[in-house]
Protein backbone atom coordinates (compact mmCIF):
# COMPACT_ATOMS: atom_id res chain seq x y z
CA UNK A 1 0.00 0.00 0.00
CA UNK A 2 2.79 2.39 0.97
CA UNK A 3 4.63 1.46 -2.21
CA UNK A 4 1.70 2.19 -4.51
CA UNK A 5 0.94 5.39 -2.60
CA UNK A 6 4.53 6.51 -3.10
CA UNK A 7 4.56 5.53 -6.77
CA UNK A 8 1.22 7.12 -7.42
CA UNK A 9 2.46 10.27 -5.84
CA UNK A 10 5.68 10.25 -7.83
CA UNK A 11 3.81 10.02 -11.10
CA UNK A 12 1.70 13.06 -10.34
CA UNK A 13 4.24 14.87 -8.28
CA UNK A 14 4.69 18.04 -10.30
CA UNK A 15 1.76 19.73 -8.59
CA UNK A 16 3.61 19.42 -5.34
CA UNK A 17 6.75 21.06 -6.66
CA UNK A 18 5.82 24.33 -4.92
CA UNK A 19 5.32 22.66 -1.54
CA UNK A 20 8.94 22.32 -0.61
CA UNK A 21 9.12 24.03 2.75
CA UNK A 22 9.12 20.74 4.67
CA UNK A 23 12.08 18.51 3.73
CA UNK A 24 11.11 15.45 1.76
CA UNK A 25 12.60 13.14 4.37
CA UNK A 26 10.22 14.51 7.00
CA UNK A 27 7.22 14.49 4.69
CA UNK A 28 7.80 10.95 3.53
CA UNK A 29 9.43 9.27 6.54
CA UNK A 30 12.24 8.44 4.21
CA UNK A 31 13.98 6.14 6.67
CA UNK A 32 11.25 3.49 6.52
CA UNK A 33 12.45 0.80 4.06
CA UNK A 34 8.99 0.50 2.54
CA UNK A 35 9.07 4.22 1.86
CA UNK A 36 12.59 4.39 0.50
CA UNK A 37 13.23 4.84 -3.14
CA UNK A 38 15.07 1.90 -4.65
CA UNK A 39 18.11 1.73 -6.85
CA UNK A 40 19.95 -0.85 -8.92
CA UNK A 41 23.49 -0.65 -10.25
CA UNK A 42 24.32 -1.31 -13.89
CA UNK A 43 27.95 -2.40 -13.89
CA UNK A 44 29.84 -3.51 -10.81
CA UNK A 45 33.46 -2.65 -11.52
CA UNK A 46 35.67 -0.49 -9.34
CA UNK A 47 33.57 2.68 -9.19
CA UNK A 48 30.45 0.80 -8.11
CA UNK A 49 32.05 0.26 -4.69
CA UNK A 50 32.13 3.99 -4.03
CA UNK A 51 30.00 5.86 -1.54
CA UNK A 52 27.69 7.27 -4.19
CA UNK A 53 26.78 3.86 -5.58
CA UNK A 54 27.13 0.80 -3.31
CA UNK A 55 27.25 2.66 -0.03
CA UNK A 56 24.75 5.42 -0.75
CA UNK A 57 22.12 5.51 1.98
CA UNK A 58 19.61 7.81 0.28
CA UNK A 59 17.92 4.96 -1.53
CA UNK A 60 17.72 1.22 -0.99
CA UNK A 61 19.94 -1.02 -3.11
CA UNK A 62 17.85 -3.82 -4.58
CA UNK A 63 19.94 -5.25 -7.38
CA UNK A 64 22.82 -5.14 -9.78
CA UNK A 65 24.09 -6.56 -13.03
CA UNK A 66 27.41 -6.88 -14.83
CA UNK A 67 28.56 -8.82 -17.91
CA UNK A 68 31.33 -10.33 -15.77
CA UNK A 69 30.03 -13.12 -13.51
CA UNK A 70 32.93 -12.55 -11.13
CA UNK A 71 31.91 -8.90 -10.73
CA UNK A 72 28.34 -9.99 -10.05
CA UNK A 73 29.49 -12.43 -7.36
CA UNK A 74 31.71 -9.79 -5.79
CA UNK A 75 28.91 -7.26 -5.97
CA UNK A 76 26.42 -9.51 -4.23
CA UNK A 77 28.90 -10.19 -1.47
CA UNK A 78 29.76 -6.52 -1.13
CA UNK A 79 26.09 -5.54 -1.01
CA UNK A 80 25.42 -7.99 1.78
CA UNK A 81 28.49 -6.82 3.70
CA UNK A 82 27.28 -3.22 3.28
CA UNK A 83 24.03 -4.15 5.00
CA UNK A 84 21.74 -4.36 1.95
CA UNK A 85 20.96 -8.02 2.50
CA UNK A 86 20.59 -10.31 -0.48
CA UNK A 87 20.06 -8.09 -3.51
CA UNK A 88 18.96 -9.37 -6.90
CA UNK A 89 21.45 -10.28 -9.62
CA UNK A 90 19.78 -9.44 -12.94
CA UNK A 91 20.83 -11.41 -16.00
CA UNK A 92 21.51 -8.14 -17.80
CA UNK A 93 20.61 -4.47 -17.67
CA UNK A 94 17.56 -4.97 -19.90
CA UNK A 95 16.01 -7.21 -17.27
CA UNK A 96 17.00 -4.67 -14.62
CA UNK A 97 15.30 -1.81 -16.50
CA UNK A 98 12.16 -3.88 -16.92
CA UNK A 99 11.79 -4.33 -13.15
CA UNK A 100 9.08 -1.97 -11.85
CA UNK A 101 10.60 -2.35 -8.40
CA UNK A 102 13.58 -0.22 -9.40
CA UNK A 103 13.11 3.55 -9.17
CA UNK A 104 16.62 4.81 -9.91
CA UNK A 105 19.40 3.24 -11.96
CA UNK A 106 23.03 4.00 -11.30
CA UNK A 107 24.98 3.63 -14.54
CA UNK A 108 28.44 2.52 -13.43
CA UNK A 109 29.70 1.27 -16.79
CA UNK A 110 32.49 2.62 -18.99
CA UNK A 111 31.49 5.76 -20.93
CA UNK A 112 30.75 4.05 -24.26
CA UNK A 113 27.58 2.69 -22.66
CA UNK A 114 26.42 5.83 -20.86
CA UNK A 115 24.43 7.39 -23.70
CA UNK A 116 22.52 4.29 -24.72
CA UNK A 117 21.76 3.19 -21.17
CA UNK A 118 20.61 6.67 -20.14
CA UNK A 119 18.12 6.77 -23.01
CA UNK A 120 16.92 3.22 -22.37
CA UNK A 121 16.56 3.93 -18.66
CA UNK A 122 14.57 7.09 -19.32
CA UNK A 123 12.33 5.15 -21.70
CA UNK A 124 11.78 2.56 -18.98
CA UNK A 125 10.61 5.28 -16.60
CA UNK A 126 13.69 5.26 -14.38
CA UNK A 127 15.49 8.21 -12.90
CA UNK A 128 19.18 8.15 -13.61
CA UNK A 129 22.44 8.61 -11.71
CA UNK A 130 25.13 8.31 -14.35
CA UNK A 131 28.90 8.05 -14.02
CA UNK A 132 31.01 10.64 -15.78
CA UNK A 133 31.81 11.51 -18.48
CA UNK A 134 28.15 11.80 -19.35
CA UNK A 135 28.62 10.47 -22.89
CA UNK A 136 31.43 9.50 -25.22
CA UNK A 137 30.49 11.95 -27.97
CA UNK A 138 28.71 15.27 -28.38
CA UNK A 139 26.05 13.56 -30.52
CA UNK A 140 25.19 11.05 -27.81
CA UNK A 141 25.12 13.79 -25.20
CA UNK A 142 22.74 15.88 -27.28
CA UNK A 143 20.36 12.94 -27.67
CA UNK A 144 20.48 12.09 -23.96
CA UNK A 145 19.88 15.73 -23.00
CA UNK A 146 16.84 16.06 -25.25
CA UNK A 147 15.38 12.64 -24.50
CA UNK A 148 15.74 12.69 -20.72
CA UNK A 149 14.15 16.14 -20.60
CA UNK A 150 11.32 15.08 -22.90
CA UNK A 151 10.60 12.03 -20.76
CA UNK A 152 10.57 14.12 -17.58
CA UNK A 153 13.15 11.95 -15.83
CA UNK A 154 15.47 13.17 -13.12
CA UNK A 155 19.14 12.85 -14.10
CA UNK A 156 22.38 13.50 -12.29
CA UNK A 157 26.01 12.91 -12.99
CA UNK A 158 28.41 11.38 -10.53
CA UNK A 159 30.50 14.45 -9.95
CA UNK A 160 29.82 17.00 -7.29
CA UNK A 161 32.42 19.73 -7.07
CA UNK A 162 30.05 22.39 -8.28
CA UNK A 163 28.10 22.05 -5.04
CA UNK A 164 30.21 20.37 -2.37
CA UNK A 165 33.69 19.44 -1.17
CA UNK A 166 36.83 21.55 -1.34
CA UNK A 167 37.83 21.94 -4.95
CA UNK A 168 41.19 20.22 -5.53
CA UNK A 169 43.86 22.72 -4.59
CA UNK A 170 41.42 24.87 -2.60
CA UNK A 171 40.30 24.66 0.99
CA UNK A 172 36.68 25.53 0.22
CA UNK A 173 33.94 24.82 -2.26
CA UNK A 174 33.78 26.55 -5.67
CA UNK A 175 30.76 28.63 -4.71
CA UNK A 176 33.18 31.03 -3.04
CA UNK A 177 35.05 31.47 -6.31
CA UNK A 178 31.73 31.95 -8.07
CA UNK A 179 30.93 34.74 -5.64
CA UNK A 180 34.12 36.46 -6.68
CA UNK A 181 33.43 35.98 -10.40
CA UNK A 182 29.74 36.88 -10.27
CA UNK A 183 30.35 40.07 -8.36
CA UNK A 184 33.01 41.44 -10.69
CA UNK A 185 35.98 41.09 -8.35
CA UNK A 186 37.97 39.70 -11.31
CA UNK A 187 36.86 42.54 -13.55
CA UNK A 188 34.01 42.45 -16.01
CA UNK A 189 35.91 41.08 -18.96
CA UNK A 190 37.04 37.59 -19.90
CA UNK A 191 39.15 35.47 -17.56
CA UNK A 192 41.96 32.99 -18.16
CA UNK A 193 42.02 29.67 -16.29
CA UNK A 194 44.79 27.09 -16.13
CA UNK A 195 44.34 23.47 -15.07
CA UNK A 196 47.50 21.56 -14.42
CA UNK A 197 49.82 20.28 -11.73
CA UNK A 198 50.72 23.83 -10.76
CA UNK A 199 47.13 24.57 -9.89
CA UNK A 200 46.40 21.26 -8.14
CA UNK A 201 45.01 19.26 -11.06
CA UNK A 202 46.45 15.99 -12.33
CA UNK A 203 45.68 14.84 -15.87
CA UNK A 204 46.28 11.17 -15.03
CA UNK A 205 48.29 10.21 -18.08
CA UNK A 206 48.61 6.72 -16.64
CA UNK A 207 45.13 6.18 -18.11
CA UNK A 208 46.77 5.13 -21.32
CA UNK A 209 46.21 2.02 -23.34
CA UNK A 210 48.91 -0.42 -24.25
CA UNK A 211 50.22 -0.67 -27.76
CA UNK A 212 50.81 -4.18 -29.18
CA UNK A 213 48.42 -5.87 -26.78
CA UNK A 214 48.27 -9.63 -26.87
CA UNK A 215 44.98 -11.01 -28.16
CA UNK A 216 43.73 -13.22 -25.37
CA UNK A 217 41.09 -15.85 -24.88
CA UNK A 218 38.10 -14.26 -23.27
CA UNK A 219 37.21 -15.87 -19.94
CA UNK A 220 34.00 -17.87 -20.12
CA UNK A 221 32.67 -15.88 -17.17
CA UNK A 222 32.84 -12.61 -19.13
CA UNK A 223 30.40 -11.56 -21.86
CA UNK A 224 32.73 -9.51 -24.10
CA UNK A 225 30.02 -8.79 -26.63
CA UNK A 226 27.74 -7.30 -23.99
CA UNK A 227 30.61 -5.36 -22.42
CA UNK A 228 31.40 -3.87 -25.83
CA UNK A 229 27.76 -3.05 -26.47
CA UNK A 230 27.64 -0.05 -28.83
CA UNK A 231 31.44 0.11 -29.25
CA UNK A 232 33.05 -1.45 -32.34
CA UNK A 233 34.10 -5.06 -32.01
CA UNK A 234 37.80 -5.59 -31.39
CA UNK A 235 39.62 -8.76 -30.32
CA UNK A 236 39.50 -9.36 -26.58
CA UNK A 237 42.48 -8.35 -24.50
CA UNK A 238 42.06 -7.88 -20.79
CA UNK A 239 43.75 -4.48 -20.70
CA UNK A 240 40.97 -3.08 -22.88
CA UNK A 241 38.47 -3.76 -20.09
CA UNK A 242 37.70 -3.28 -16.42
CA UNK A 243 40.15 -1.00 -14.61
CA UNK A 244 42.10 -0.04 -17.73
CA UNK A 245 39.43 0.67 -20.35
CA UNK A 246 40.09 4.42 -20.15
CA UNK A 247 43.18 4.05 -22.27
CA UNK A 248 41.28 3.17 -25.46
CA UNK A 249 39.48 5.68 -27.69
CA UNK A 250 36.66 3.22 -28.40
CA UNK A 251 35.50 3.45 -24.76
CA UNK A 252 36.82 6.68 -23.20
CA UNK A 253 39.44 9.44 -23.48
CA UNK A 254 42.14 8.71 -20.94
CA UNK A 255 42.67 11.26 -18.17
CA UNK A 256 40.46 13.79 -19.95
CA UNK A 257 37.62 11.28 -19.99
CA UNK A 258 38.19 10.46 -16.33
CA UNK A 259 38.80 13.86 -14.81
CA UNK A 260 37.60 16.69 -17.00
CA UNK A 261 34.02 16.72 -15.73
CA UNK A 262 35.33 16.74 -12.15
CA UNK A 263 37.54 19.72 -13.03
CA UNK A 264 35.65 21.59 -15.71
CA UNK A 265 32.05 21.22 -14.55
CA UNK A 266 32.71 23.30 -11.43
CA UNK A 267 34.64 25.78 -13.58
CA UNK A 268 31.69 26.02 -15.96
CA UNK A 269 29.51 26.74 -12.94
CA UNK A 270 31.76 29.31 -11.33
CA UNK A 271 32.24 31.11 -14.66
CA UNK A 272 28.46 31.17 -15.20
CA UNK A 273 28.82 29.32 -18.51
CA UNK A 274 26.32 26.49 -18.05
CA UNK A 275 24.48 27.38 -21.22
CA UNK A 276 27.26 27.69 -23.73
CA UNK A 277 30.43 26.09 -25.04
CA UNK A 278 33.75 27.31 -26.45
CA UNK A 279 34.02 28.54 -30.04
CA UNK A 280 37.60 27.41 -30.52
CA UNK A 281 39.74 24.53 -29.35
CA UNK A 282 43.50 24.43 -29.86
CA UNK A 283 45.73 21.38 -29.48
CA UNK A 284 49.41 21.07 -28.84
CA UNK A 285 50.88 17.60 -28.49
CA UNK A 286 52.00 14.52 -30.33
CA UNK A 287 49.93 12.77 -32.96
CA UNK A 288 47.94 10.02 -31.29
CA UNK A 289 47.85 6.28 -31.83
CA UNK A 290 44.55 5.40 -33.57
CA UNK A 291 43.56 2.86 -30.85
CA UNK A 292 45.42 3.94 -27.74
CA UNK A 293 45.04 7.15 -25.75
CA UNK A 294 48.34 8.93 -25.22
CA UNK A 295 49.07 12.28 -23.65
CA UNK A 296 48.71 15.91 -24.65
CA UNK A 297 50.88 18.97 -24.01
CA UNK A 298 48.24 21.67 -24.02
CA UNK A 299 44.58 22.06 -24.93
CA UNK A 300 43.11 25.55 -25.02
CA UNK A 301 39.45 26.49 -25.15
CA UNK A 302 38.32 29.99 -26.09
CA UNK A 303 34.76 31.19 -25.54
CA UNK A 304 33.00 33.78 -27.62
CA UNK A 305 33.53 36.42 -24.92
CA UNK A 306 37.28 35.79 -24.86
CA UNK A 307 37.35 33.57 -21.78
CA UNK A 308 40.23 31.10 -22.07
CA UNK A 309 40.64 27.74 -20.36
CA UNK A 310 43.94 25.90 -20.68
CA UNK A 311 44.52 22.25 -19.88
CA UNK A 312 48.21 22.25 -19.00
CA UNK A 313 49.33 18.71 -19.80
CA UNK A 314 53.09 19.35 -20.04
CA UNK A 315 53.09 21.50 -16.90
CA UNK A 316 54.75 24.39 -18.72
CA UNK A 317 52.30 26.76 -16.98
CA UNK A 318 53.06 25.43 -13.53
CA UNK A 319 53.77 28.85 -12.07
CA UNK A 320 50.56 30.45 -13.29
CA UNK A 321 47.50 31.26 -11.21
CA UNK A 322 44.34 29.19 -11.48
CA UNK A 323 42.30 32.16 -12.68
CA UNK A 324 43.47 35.55 -13.96
CA UNK A 325 40.79 38.21 -14.12
CA UNK A 326 40.52 40.88 -16.81
CA UNK A 327 41.63 43.41 -14.20
CA UNK A 328 44.76 41.43 -13.29
CA UNK A 329 43.38 40.05 -10.01
CA UNK A 330 44.37 36.41 -9.67
CA UNK A 331 43.15 33.35 -7.81
CA UNK A 332 45.57 30.67 -6.64
CA UNK A 333 45.36 27.30 -4.97
CA UNK A 334 46.37 27.21 -1.33
CA UNK A 335 49.88 25.97 -0.68
CA UNK A 336 50.81 24.11 2.45
CA UNK A 337 53.83 25.14 4.52
CA UNK A 338 56.00 22.72 2.52
CA UNK A 339 54.91 24.33 -0.75
CA UNK A 340 52.71 21.49 -1.97
CA UNK A 341 49.08 21.91 -2.95
CA UNK A 342 46.57 19.86 -0.95
CA UNK A 343 44.15 17.58 -2.76
CA UNK A 344 40.42 17.34 -2.19
CA UNK A 345 40.79 13.98 -0.50
CA UNK A 346 43.70 15.19 1.57
CA UNK A 347 43.38 18.93 2.07
CA UNK A 348 45.72 18.75 5.05
CA UNK A 349 46.60 22.24 6.18
CA UNK A 350 44.31 23.67 3.46
CA UNK A 351 41.23 22.62 5.31
CA UNK A 352 38.87 25.55 5.71
CA UNK A 353 41.28 27.98 4.13
CA UNK A 354 39.77 29.98 1.29
CA UNK A 355 42.03 30.33 -1.72
CA UNK A 356 44.89 32.63 -2.62
CA UNK A 357 44.11 35.99 -4.17
CA UNK A 358 46.47 38.67 -5.43
CA UNK A 359 45.81 42.07 -6.89
CA UNK A 360 47.11 43.20 -10.28
CA UNK A 361 50.44 44.14 -8.69
CA UNK A 362 50.86 40.72 -7.11
CA UNK A 363 50.02 41.85 -3.59
CA UNK A 364 48.12 39.35 -1.45
CA UNK A 365 44.44 40.03 -0.89
CA UNK A 366 42.33 38.75 2.01
CA UNK A 367 40.15 36.29 0.12
CA UNK A 368 38.23 35.29 3.23
CA UNK A 369 37.18 38.88 3.92
CA UNK A 370 36.37 39.61 0.29
CA UNK A 371 34.21 36.53 -0.03
CA UNK A 372 32.42 37.01 3.28
CA UNK A 373 31.26 40.46 2.20
CA UNK A 374 29.77 39.24 -1.10
CA UNK A 375 26.25 37.91 -1.62
CA UNK A 376 25.83 34.15 -2.05
CA UNK A 377 25.08 32.69 -5.49
CA UNK A 378 21.57 31.38 -6.17
CA UNK A 379 20.94 28.14 -4.23
CA UNK A 380 21.28 24.86 -6.11
CA UNK A 381 19.26 21.68 -5.95
CA UNK A 382 21.88 19.38 -4.44
CA UNK A 383 19.93 16.41 -3.03
CA UNK A 384 19.15 13.92 -5.78
CA UNK A 385 16.69 11.91 -3.74
CA UNK A 386 14.81 15.13 -3.08
CA UNK A 387 14.98 15.79 -6.83
CA UNK A 388 13.38 12.42 -7.52
CA UNK A 389 10.67 12.79 -4.91
CA UNK A 390 9.80 16.41 -5.65
CA UNK A 391 10.54 16.22 -9.42
CA UNK A 392 12.93 19.16 -9.13
CA UNK A 393 15.88 19.08 -11.49
CA UNK A 394 19.21 18.41 -9.88
CA UNK A 395 21.90 21.07 -10.29
CA UNK A 396 24.17 18.80 -12.34
CA UNK A 397 21.51 17.52 -14.69
CA UNK A 398 21.33 16.42 -18.32
CA UNK A 399 21.74 19.99 -19.61
CA UNK A 400 24.51 21.34 -17.39
CA UNK A 401 26.19 17.94 -17.59
CA UNK A 402 25.98 17.94 -21.38
CA UNK A 403 27.78 21.27 -21.57
CA UNK A 404 30.62 20.26 -19.28
CA UNK A 405 30.88 16.88 -20.99
CA UNK A 406 31.09 18.72 -24.31
CA UNK A 407 34.30 20.32 -23.02
CA UNK A 408 35.73 16.82 -22.56
CA UNK A 409 34.55 15.63 -25.96
CA UNK A 410 35.90 18.68 -27.76
CA UNK A 411 39.32 18.06 -26.20
CA UNK A 412 39.25 14.37 -27.11
CA UNK A 413 38.30 15.22 -30.70
CA UNK A 414 41.21 17.69 -30.90
CA UNK A 415 43.61 15.03 -29.60
CA UNK A 416 42.44 12.49 -32.16
CA UNK A 417 42.58 15.06 -34.97
CA UNK A 418 46.02 16.17 -33.84
CA UNK A 419 44.93 19.81 -34.22
CA UNK A 420 42.40 22.34 -33.08
CA UNK A 421 39.15 23.43 -34.68
CA UNK A 422 36.29 25.89 -34.35
CA UNK A 423 32.97 24.98 -32.78
CA UNK A 424 29.46 26.42 -32.99
CA UNK A 425 28.02 26.31 -29.45
CA UNK A 426 24.45 26.77 -30.72
CA UNK A 427 24.41 24.30 -33.63
CA UNK A 428 26.71 22.05 -31.54
CA UNK A 429 28.87 21.21 -34.54
CA UNK A 430 32.39 21.88 -35.64
CA UNK A 431 32.50 24.95 -37.87
CA UNK A 432 33.17 24.04 -41.52
CA UNK A 433 35.19 21.06 -40.33
CA UNK A 434 33.77 17.69 -41.34
CA UNK A 435 36.85 15.87 -40.03
CA UNK A 436 36.18 17.20 -36.52
CA UNK A 437 32.46 16.48 -36.77
CA UNK A 438 33.20 12.83 -37.49
CA UNK A 439 34.65 12.51 -34.00
CA UNK A 440 31.90 14.58 -32.37
CA UNK A 441 29.11 12.57 -34.00
CA UNK A 442 29.62 8.82 -34.30
CA UNK A 443 27.30 5.91 -34.84
CA UNK A 444 26.98 2.72 -32.77
CA UNK A 445 26.89 -1.01 -33.15
CA UNK A 446 23.46 -2.56 -33.56
CA UNK A 447 21.14 -3.38 -31.89
CA UNK A 448 22.13 -0.56 -29.58
CA UNK A 449 21.79 2.18 -32.19
CA UNK A 450 18.17 1.21 -32.71
CA UNK A 451 17.58 1.27 -28.95
CA UNK A 452 19.26 4.64 -28.72
CA UNK A 453 17.23 6.16 -31.54
CA UNK A 454 13.80 4.77 -30.65
CA UNK A 455 11.08 7.18 -29.58
Amino acid at each position, binding site marked *: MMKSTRRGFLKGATAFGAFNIVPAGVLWGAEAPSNQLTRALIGFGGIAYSENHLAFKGSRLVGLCDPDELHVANGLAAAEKQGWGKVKAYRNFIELLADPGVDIVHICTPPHWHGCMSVMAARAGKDIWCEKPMTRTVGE*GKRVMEYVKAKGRMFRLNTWFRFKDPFYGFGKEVKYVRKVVENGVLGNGPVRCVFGAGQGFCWKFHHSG*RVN*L*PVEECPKTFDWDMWLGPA*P*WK*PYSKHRTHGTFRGYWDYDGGGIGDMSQHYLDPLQYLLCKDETSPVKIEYKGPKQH*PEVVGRFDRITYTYDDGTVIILDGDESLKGEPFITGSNGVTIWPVRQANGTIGSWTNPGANKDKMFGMKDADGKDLDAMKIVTDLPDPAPQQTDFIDSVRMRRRFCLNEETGFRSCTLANLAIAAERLGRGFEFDPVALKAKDDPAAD*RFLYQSMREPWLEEFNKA
Partner: protein
Amino acid sequence: MKYTLLAAIAALGLSLSAATDYTKIGAATADAAGDAPLGTAWHAQHIEEVNEATTDDALEAFVDSETAAAELLSRIKPGYQTDPLDAIRIGAVTQYVMANAGAKWYEFWKSSRSGERAIWVGALVKALSGAKDEYVAIFLLDQLRWCADEGKVDAIKAAAAHLDSKNVASLLEQVVRELKRECPGL
Protein backbone atom coordinates in the same frame (compact mmCIF):
# COMPACT_ATOMS: atom_id res chain seq x y z
CA MET B 1 46.52 -8.02 -8.75
CA LYS B 2 44.10 -5.19 -9.45
CA TYR B 3 44.78 -3.61 -6.05
CA THR B 4 48.52 -4.03 -6.46
CA LEU B 5 48.20 -2.20 -9.75
CA LEU B 6 46.12 0.58 -8.24
CA ALA B 7 48.53 0.93 -5.35
CA ALA B 8 51.43 1.11 -7.79
CA ILE B 9 49.69 3.85 -9.77
CA ALA B 10 48.88 5.77 -6.59
CA ALA B 11 52.45 5.48 -5.38
CA LEU B 12 53.73 6.62 -8.73
CA GLY B 13 51.34 9.57 -8.70
CA LEU B 14 52.65 10.68 -5.32
CA SER B 15 56.25 10.35 -6.42
CA LEU B 16 55.85 12.47 -9.56
CA SER B 17 56.29 16.02 -8.35
CA ALA B 18 58.46 17.87 -10.87
CA ALA B 19 57.82 17.57 -14.62
CA THR B 20 56.45 14.09 -15.05
CA ASP B 21 58.70 11.40 -16.50
CA TYR B 22 56.22 9.44 -18.56
CA THR B 23 58.74 6.67 -19.28
CA LYS B 24 58.25 5.58 -15.67
CA ILE B 25 54.49 5.19 -15.97
CA GLY B 26 54.86 2.07 -18.06
CA ALA B 27 56.95 0.35 -15.40
CA ALA B 28 54.28 0.92 -12.76
CA THR B 29 51.58 -0.75 -14.81
CA ALA B 30 53.68 -3.45 -16.44
CA ASP B 31 52.01 -6.17 -14.40
CA ALA B 32 48.68 -5.60 -16.01
CA ALA B 33 49.47 -6.54 -19.59
CA GLY B 34 52.80 -8.30 -19.69
CA ASP B 35 55.35 -6.62 -21.93
CA ALA B 36 53.01 -4.51 -24.04
CA PRO B 37 54.25 -0.95 -23.57
CA LEU B 38 51.94 1.73 -22.22
CA GLY B 39 51.05 4.34 -24.84
CA THR B 40 52.23 7.35 -22.83
CA ALA B 41 55.52 5.68 -21.95
CA TRP B 42 56.04 4.56 -25.54
CA HIS B 43 55.30 8.11 -26.75
CA ALA B 44 57.76 9.58 -24.27
CA GLN B 45 60.49 7.20 -25.38
CA HIS B 46 59.84 7.76 -29.09
CA ILE B 47 58.61 11.34 -29.17
CA GLU B 48 61.26 12.61 -31.55
CA GLU B 49 60.59 9.78 -33.99
CA VAL B 50 56.85 10.41 -33.77
CA ASN B 51 57.24 14.13 -34.37
CA GLU B 52 59.59 13.55 -37.32
CA ALA B 53 57.34 10.88 -38.80
CA THR B 54 54.22 13.04 -38.66
CA THR B 55 55.33 16.37 -40.14
CA ASP B 56 53.29 17.45 -43.16
CA ASP B 57 56.21 16.66 -45.48
CA ALA B 58 56.63 13.17 -44.02
CA LEU B 59 52.92 12.42 -44.33
CA GLU B 60 52.68 13.88 -47.83
CA ALA B 61 55.20 11.30 -49.00
CA PHE B 62 52.70 8.52 -48.28
CA VAL B 63 50.01 10.05 -50.45
CA ASP B 64 52.28 11.09 -53.32
CA SER B 65 51.35 7.90 -55.10
CA GLU B 66 49.17 4.82 -54.76
CA THR B 67 52.31 2.72 -54.33
CA ALA B 68 53.52 4.71 -51.34
CA ALA B 69 50.09 4.59 -49.72
CA ALA B 70 49.75 0.86 -50.31
CA GLU B 71 53.17 0.20 -48.87
CA LEU B 72 52.33 1.98 -45.62
CA LEU B 73 49.05 0.13 -45.28
CA SER B 74 50.79 -3.20 -45.89
CA ARG B 75 52.46 -2.69 -42.51
CA ILE B 76 49.17 -3.25 -40.65
CA LYS B 77 49.43 -6.51 -38.75
CA PRO B 78 46.77 -8.74 -37.21
CA GLY B 79 45.76 -8.55 -33.59
CA TYR B 80 47.12 -5.18 -32.32
CA GLN B 81 50.66 -6.01 -33.52
CA THR B 82 51.14 -3.13 -35.93
CA ASP B 83 54.27 -1.21 -35.07
CA PRO B 84 53.03 1.76 -33.00
CA LEU B 85 54.93 4.25 -35.14
CA ASP B 86 53.28 2.87 -38.29
CA ALA B 87 49.86 2.94 -36.61
CA ILE B 88 50.43 6.58 -35.65
CA ARG B 89 51.59 7.35 -39.19
CA ILE B 90 48.46 5.79 -40.67
CA GLY B 91 46.17 7.71 -38.33
CA ALA B 92 48.06 10.91 -39.05
CA VAL B 93 47.86 10.45 -42.84
CA THR B 94 44.08 9.98 -42.51
CA GLN B 95 43.83 13.32 -40.72
CA TYR B 96 46.36 14.96 -43.03
CA VAL B 97 44.27 14.27 -46.13
CA MET B 98 41.16 15.59 -44.36
CA ALA B 99 42.70 18.96 -43.60
CA ASN B 100 40.53 21.77 -44.92
CA ALA B 101 37.93 19.30 -46.17
CA GLY B 102 35.27 21.80 -45.14
CA ALA B 103 36.83 24.82 -46.82
CA LYS B 104 34.42 26.95 -48.84
CA TRP B 105 35.06 27.43 -52.57
CA TYR B 106 36.23 30.99 -52.06
CA GLU B 107 38.64 30.15 -49.23
CA PHE B 108 41.54 29.80 -51.64
CA TRP B 109 44.05 30.31 -48.82
CA LYS B 110 43.00 26.98 -47.33
CA SER B 111 44.56 24.41 -49.61
CA SER B 112 42.42 21.33 -49.78
CA ARG B 113 44.09 17.97 -50.15
CA SER B 114 41.41 16.35 -52.27
CA GLY B 115 43.92 14.66 -54.58
CA GLU B 116 45.83 13.17 -51.68
CA ARG B 117 42.55 12.15 -50.05
CA ALA B 118 41.48 10.31 -53.20
CA ILE B 119 44.77 8.40 -53.25
CA TRP B 120 44.57 7.52 -49.56
CA VAL B 121 40.94 6.44 -49.58
CA GLY B 122 41.59 4.41 -52.73
CA ALA B 123 44.51 2.70 -51.03
CA LEU B 124 42.46 1.93 -47.91
CA VAL B 125 39.68 0.40 -50.02
CA LYS B 126 42.16 -1.66 -52.05
CA ALA B 127 43.88 -2.89 -48.89
CA LEU B 128 40.47 -3.82 -47.50
CA SER B 129 39.68 -5.83 -50.61
CA GLY B 130 42.89 -7.83 -50.06
CA ALA B 131 42.60 -8.17 -46.27
CA LYS B 132 42.52 -11.75 -45.06
CA ASP B 133 42.48 -11.03 -41.35
CA GLU B 134 39.45 -9.77 -39.41
CA TYR B 135 41.46 -7.30 -37.30
CA VAL B 136 43.32 -5.89 -40.30
CA ALA B 137 39.96 -5.29 -42.01
CA ILE B 138 38.64 -3.59 -38.91
CA PHE B 139 41.73 -1.38 -38.65
CA LEU B 140 41.22 -0.29 -42.26
CA LEU B 141 37.50 0.35 -41.78
CA ASP B 142 38.36 2.35 -38.68
CA GLN B 143 40.39 4.70 -40.90
CA LEU B 144 37.80 4.87 -43.67
CA ARG B 145 35.31 6.19 -41.08
CA TRP B 146 37.28 9.36 -40.75
CA CYS B 147 38.25 10.08 -44.36
CA ALA B 148 35.99 8.42 -46.93
CA ASP B 149 32.73 9.97 -48.06
CA GLU B 150 29.27 8.77 -49.01
CA GLY B 151 30.32 8.30 -52.61
CA LYS B 152 32.64 5.51 -51.53
CA VAL B 153 30.06 3.43 -49.67
CA ASP B 154 29.47 0.93 -52.48
CA ALA B 155 33.19 0.45 -53.09
CA ILE B 156 33.81 -0.12 -49.38
CA LYS B 157 30.98 -2.64 -49.13
CA ALA B 158 32.31 -4.49 -52.16
CA ALA B 159 35.84 -4.47 -50.73
CA ALA B 160 34.68 -6.06 -47.48
CA ALA B 161 32.30 -8.54 -49.07
CA HIS B 162 34.82 -11.42 -49.14
CA LEU B 163 35.23 -11.41 -45.38
CA ASP B 164 32.88 -13.82 -43.68
CA SER B 165 32.91 -12.09 -40.31
CA LYS B 166 29.99 -10.67 -38.36
CA ASN B 167 32.43 -8.43 -36.53
CA VAL B 168 33.64 -6.85 -39.76
CA ALA B 169 30.02 -6.67 -40.95
CA SER B 170 28.92 -4.78 -37.85
CA LEU B 171 31.71 -2.19 -38.15
CA LEU B 172 31.01 -1.89 -41.88
CA GLU B 173 27.36 -1.13 -41.07
CA GLN B 174 28.50 1.54 -38.63
CA VAL B 175 30.96 3.05 -41.11
CA VAL B 176 28.29 3.24 -43.83
CA ARG B 177 25.95 5.10 -41.48
CA GLU B 178 28.69 7.49 -40.48
CA LEU B 179 29.65 8.19 -44.08
CA LYS B 180 26.00 8.98 -44.77
CA ARG B 181 26.05 11.11 -41.59
CA GLU B 182 23.21 9.09 -40.09
CA CYS B 183 24.53 9.58 -36.55
CA PRO B 184 22.63 10.11 -33.29
CA GLY B 185 22.29 13.77 -32.47
CA LEU B 186 22.80 14.94 -36.05
